[in-house]
């Protein structure tokens, strides 16, 4: 009896629970194009990038150690670590915004696939996992640069693919705009 419960009844109950979760409406939706415009136009903390990078450098606080202010140096490094973690949150938000934008692009221009969707899904999962890993490394005081590099590459790839997709949309739009003009010219030539 217990084998049947484990192998069949429990998975069936799990499926019902998963169904209930999956059909629930999402908390945050970006359904209209205007919403996407608004979100893309939102200001972020880009201007503070140099300070954030500087805050992660150990040389910046080394002089405090050499002068015997160990406690102060430790506190400053902790605070800067927090800043880096917050910055990572912004990166993650930004990535999710791009994903949302690519989903919207896929929806509004269904004949154009913004990227190979499987790679897209894999990239998303990898990005989320790497963000968590980087967060752990920062908390443990380990070197974060290599992971930042991987994240940068992933963002770069996505940028290129989305750029290609939007370029294709632009080209199609341009052709669509020129086509009536071309027909008009042909009509005039034939007269």
């Amino acid at each position, binding site marked *: 009896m217990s084998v*049947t419960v484990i192998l*069949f009844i429990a998975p069936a109950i799990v499926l019902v629970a998963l*169904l209930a979760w999956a059909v629930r409406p999402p908390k945050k939706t970006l359904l209209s194009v205007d919403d996407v415009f608004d979100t893309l136009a939102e200001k972020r903390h880009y201007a503070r990038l140099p300070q954030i990078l500087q805050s992660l450098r150990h040389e910046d606080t080394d002089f405090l150690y050499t002068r015997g202010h160990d406690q102060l140096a430790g506190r400053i490094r902790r605070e800067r670590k927090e800043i880096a973690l917050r910055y990572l949150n912004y990166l993650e938000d930004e990535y999710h915004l791009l994903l949302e934008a690519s989903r919207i692009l896929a929806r509004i221009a269904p004949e154009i696939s913004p990227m190979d969707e499987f790679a897209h899904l894999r990239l998303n999962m990898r990005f989320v996992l790497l963000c968590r890993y980087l967060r752990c490394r920062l908390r443990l005081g380990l070197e974060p640069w290599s992971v*930042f590099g991987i994240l940068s590459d992933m*963002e770069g790839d996505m940028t290129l693919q989305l750029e290609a997709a939007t370029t294709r949309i632009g080209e199609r739009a341009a052709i*669509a705009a020129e086509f009536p003009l071309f027909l008009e010219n042909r009509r005039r030539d034939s007269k």
Partner: protein
Amino acid sequence: MSAALILRNLSWALSTVLELVLLYFLVRRKVYRSHPAFFSYVLIALLQSAVVATAYRVFGQASAASYNIAWGSQVVVICARWLAITEISKKALGEFSGIWAMVSRMLFVLGMSVLVYALVSSRDQWTLAVLTADRAVEMCIASFIVAMFVFVKYYRVEMSQMDRMLAIGFCLYSCFFVINDSIYQAWIRTAGPLWNYLESVTYLATLLLWIGAVLRHSESRIAASAPSLTLEDYLELSGKLNSRLHVLNNRLDKLFHSGDSRS
């Protein structure tokens, strides 16, 4: 006739009536045009009831002929159900070629894996082989639909309320079928009519859900909710998205190269 048998016959009669009502609304609201596979499924399920009832009357309930007809027709019903579910999935995700290309393959692989799992992990007697296969297929259908809903949620795809309710009905029916079947095989093999009655109740609930969904269905509402985007919107969105991506890419490049120079 025992009380369980009377209940079973009553539920069969009621489910036939509800199938007829559903068919009526599918025709009246012209849903058969947009959902031919679902319409065929309901029609086949109705025909199955008629065929099995006739077989029971002619050959008797315990005869081998009735058994073969009942389970043989079940194969046709399950195939029709698969087609109906595929139709709903394609309606939800099919218009996004990139998404559908990936999701359809993943759903197929998942469905086959669950089917194999359910068949391999059944340790029942060979006399229950047909029931076991049926349970495996139902589990496969339920997993397929749940996975489809997960993808719909992930991509935030708009799905019509009717398609959503039809898929939920299929999934709930399949899940409860698996539970009913497992309970029957584990505990109450002797109480066959009662098991049949429980299965019929699940099917009745599903039919009511579908009738409600078809009644609320409106073609004009679907047309109104279809996404529309002007040429200017396309270009504006593309431009804004590109500039935003450039900023992000530059920012990350800076971050990366800054790290390199340090290490």
